[in-house]
Each structure stands twice: as C-alpha cells, then as structure tokens.
C-alpha cells in the first residue's frame, strides 16, 4: 500500500548550529496511523513537524504527501491537508478573537452552520465552550483553549494532524483528559496523526507506532506488534 506520507533522506540544518537538526531521516506513515515521535529535548521532534506544516524547509531530501512533493503544494492546499496543534495557545488560536470568530475563520464559505450547531459541536469537546461563544479566547482556561483548538482542527478533518506536545502546558488531569479525547477523535475520524510527547505512557497507550529520534537521527522505530510487548520502562530505555 502506498504510504500517505514519506520522509525521504530528510536533512535539516541551521547555519548557527554545527550539528544538523535532522540528518538523513527516512520514514513512512500510512493513512490512519497515529505515530508518536519520542526523543530528548533537541532531538529534532518538533523540527520534523515544522517541516510538514511549512514553518521549516528541508536542506536535502523530499517529503512526499499523497504522491506529491510537499513543496509543490500551495500554502492554501497545505493548510487544508495539514493542521498543527502545539502547547502554545497562540500557535493554535487567535487569542484576541472570540470563539465564534475563530470558528468563522476556518469555516468553509459555502457552509452555513448556525451558532446552535456550533455550540452542540463544541459541547462534545468541553461543555464550558458551548456557553462562551462570544468570549475572547484569551479569557479561556488553558484546558478550554486546547480543547477548542482540537475541536476547530478536526472540524474539517485534515489529512494529517500534527500534535506537538499539545498537552504539556496543562495540569496532569486536564492533560490526561485532552489526550484521551484526542486519541478518541483521531481514531473515530481516521485521522493520520504525528504526535510528539515526553510521556511514554501516552506513547504506549495512544500511538500505533513509535519513532524515536536522537540527536537528529532515527534512533529506533517501534512497530505496532513490537509495541504490545513493551512496558513504559522498557520504552524509556529504548528511546532515551
């Protein structure tokens, strides 16, 4: 089966750094996979995701998305295919706009959804959101902001959802809840996801496959079958 996404000999350098951020990365992702990217700080996890959403450009190699070089996609086409959520609310949402205005910006022009249906939709992500459509996003709690960001990200399910430690700024209980919600949504809607995290329990519980990076290199690839026999300690030892 042709993979949905392929990294082919990806290298990323920064002029101020001696060591490449990523070096010769080869990896493929099938449609519907939830790939967890693990690695220590500075291993290149976030940079790998930033290459996909256009914030970084490769120095060498190709990223193939649905048989097309990702660089050949227009910004609009790429935005429709790939959506990113990070731990920073300002990367995901317009903080000085209301919930409804944030929704309007991603709403398709020909889709005339009502405020009621939006409230119903948001209720399933976080009941508080349904009553705060006219509230500035900046005034929501961190958990509400991330739940809203997830809700808007999957309103028109993207081909690939990039989750860059999107729960790491939340308290443990809210983070756990949001992670479970995220996993449920991506499996229910068959969304392909790349998730970076430092939480090995999340990696084991929610990831279909695990890619471990170390100093910009692929350190380990753990497939679905191998993962089942691993404990958190074993995974920690293999990936860090």
């Amino acid at each position, binding site marked *: 089966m042709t993979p949905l996404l392929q990294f082919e000999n990806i290298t990323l350098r920064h002029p101020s750094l001696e060591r490449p951020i990523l070096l010769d990365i080869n990896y493929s992702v099938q449609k519907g996979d939830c790939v967890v990217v693990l690695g220590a700080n500075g291993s290149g996890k976030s940079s790998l995701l930033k290459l996909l959403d256009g914030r970084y450009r490769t120095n060498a190699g190709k990223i193939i998305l649905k048989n097309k070089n990702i660089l050949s996609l227009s910004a*609009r086409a790429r935005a429709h295919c790939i959506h990113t959520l990070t731990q920073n609310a300002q990367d995901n949402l317009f903080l000085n706009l209301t919930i409804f205005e944030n929704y309007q910006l991603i709403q398709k022009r020909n889709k005339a959804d009502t405020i009621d249906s939006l409230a119903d939709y948001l209720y399933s992500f976080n009941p508080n959101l349904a009553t705060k459509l006219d509230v500035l996003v900046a005034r929501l709690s961190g958990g509400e902001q991330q739940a809203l960001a997830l809700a808007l990200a999957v309103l028109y399910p993207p081909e690939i959802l990039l989750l860059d430690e999107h729960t790491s700024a939340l308290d443990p209980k809210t983070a756990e809840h949001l992670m479970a919600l995220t996993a449920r949504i991506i499996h229910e809607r068959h969304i392909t996801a790349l998730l970076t995290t430092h939480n090995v329990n999340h990696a084991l519980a929610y990831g279909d496959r695990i890619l471990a990076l170390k100093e910009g290199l692929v350190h380990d690839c753990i497939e679905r079958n191998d993962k089942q026999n691993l404990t958190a300690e074993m995974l920690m030892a293999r990936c860090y």
Partner: protein
Amino acid sequence: MIALLLATLTQSLTLIPLALGINLSYTLLRATDMTIDGSFVLGAGVFAQLVTMGISPYIAFLAALACGAIAGAFTAFLQNGGKVDPLLAGILTSFILYSVNMAIMGRPNINLLSTPTLFSAAFAHSLTLGWLSVALLIGLLVVAFYALLQSRLGLCLRAFGDNAMLLSRQGYNVTTLRFTGFGLNNLLAAASGAITAQIIGYADIGMGVGMTLIGIGAIVLGQHLILPFVKKHYLRAGSELLAAFIGIALYFFILNGLLRFNINPIYLKLLLGVLLALFLRTATQKASLT
C-alpha cells in the same frame, strides 16, 4: 461654551476618516502606521492640485483616495516578507512622501478659497447646508467602514493583526491582507486630508505633521473611556468607532479650550504632547492591571 463645542464638532468632523484609518491600523492591524502623516498631506495636495487645474472635484477626490491607497500599499510592500519593520516602513514612506507631495503640489501651499470644491456650492448656499454636506460624505465613509469591519474581510484584518503567522498557516494570503489593510487606512487618511483642505481653504505641505500621534492618542483615550463598558464582543466594532469619534472630539475640545485660555501657541504642542503621554500611560497601566 457653545462656540467651543461648535469649533470642536467641526474640527473633529473632518478628522473622523483619519480616526477610522488609525483605528484600522492601530486597533485591527496592531501596527503604528506613520505613513498617515504623509498620506494626509498627499490627499490634500492631490485634491488641491487637480481642482486648481480645473478637474472635477469628484474626480479629484477619488484621485486623492487612490493616491492615499497607493502610499499605504507602498508601506505594505516595504514590510513584505519581514524585510522592514512596520514602524520603520511607515516612517520611510512618510519621509519619501514629503518630496512626492512637494512635487505634486509644486509649492508648499495651494489656496482653495476661490476654487470650486465638493462643498463650495453648499457652503455658498448656507453654512448649515455646507456642514450637512460634509457630514453626509463623512457619514457615508463611516457606514462603509463599519460594513467593512462587520464583513469577513474585517474579521480577516483583525485576525491578521492578532496573529498573521497563524492566519498564513490556515491558508489565508497575508500579503493581500497587508496590502488591503495598509491601503485602506491610508485611503481614509487621504480622504481626511482632502476634506480638511476644502474646509480650511488650503492644502499645506506641513499640515500632516503629528497627525498619526494625534490620532493614536485620541483613539487610546476614546477606547480608555468607552471599551470598559462594552461587555458584549459583537458590539466591539461599533464601540471602537464610537471610541474613535469621542477621542477625536475630546482632543479638539481640549485644544480649543487651551486656545481660549490664551496659551502661547509655542507651548501648545508641548501641552498637548504631555496630555497625550498621560492618556497613553494611564491606558497602558489599566491594560496591564486587567
């Protein structure tokens, strides 16, 4: 007192389009666009030069608006791709515009007292009709601007000011939005310049000095007074416009009040500058507290 209020009202009226433009750049786009100092004179100069050449005041007014928009587009062009900081780009365009305005006008001052303008026929009939026609034109600009704020384009401009990077990642063309936003705010400043020239009877090369600062100070003051009482965000666009009107009116009320106290004109800008600094400081302090 009535004379003071009337003077305040008439002076504020001509600067309402400028306040709308500064509201667009300062509140929505979140940029301090110094181009306005130059595009205000550009609007006045283009209008004055064209009508003295015998061109219809309607065409001259539209040409003044177009020139203002071009000046704003030039500022947007300088900023494109993060090449020049927005503040610096505005100062640079304004600097260039001094020569451009001088070249267009041919001299530092063009007298319009004996030239037909948009309002000359109405003012010749009666003072009331004259001011009504000015108010009508400005009312049309306000309605058009309000409609823009309520439209999807208005929302996109607000989102651009909030987080242009995210807007770009969502597939919007932020370059087009930058050109539109800066073009529109300078179009409004040029409109204000052209209207002011017709009311005061001349276009002068120095008439735009400090206009951006006055506008920003007035808007900050107006927002400081109005916005704390606005709880519903769907009223935001309307209350921002109201804040701009009240800010400009208060500025001229204070200016005319100072003139009536026989303040030496040498110290007028010093006093107004200190007042604006106080407004800005208190507004910033309140914002940081909330």
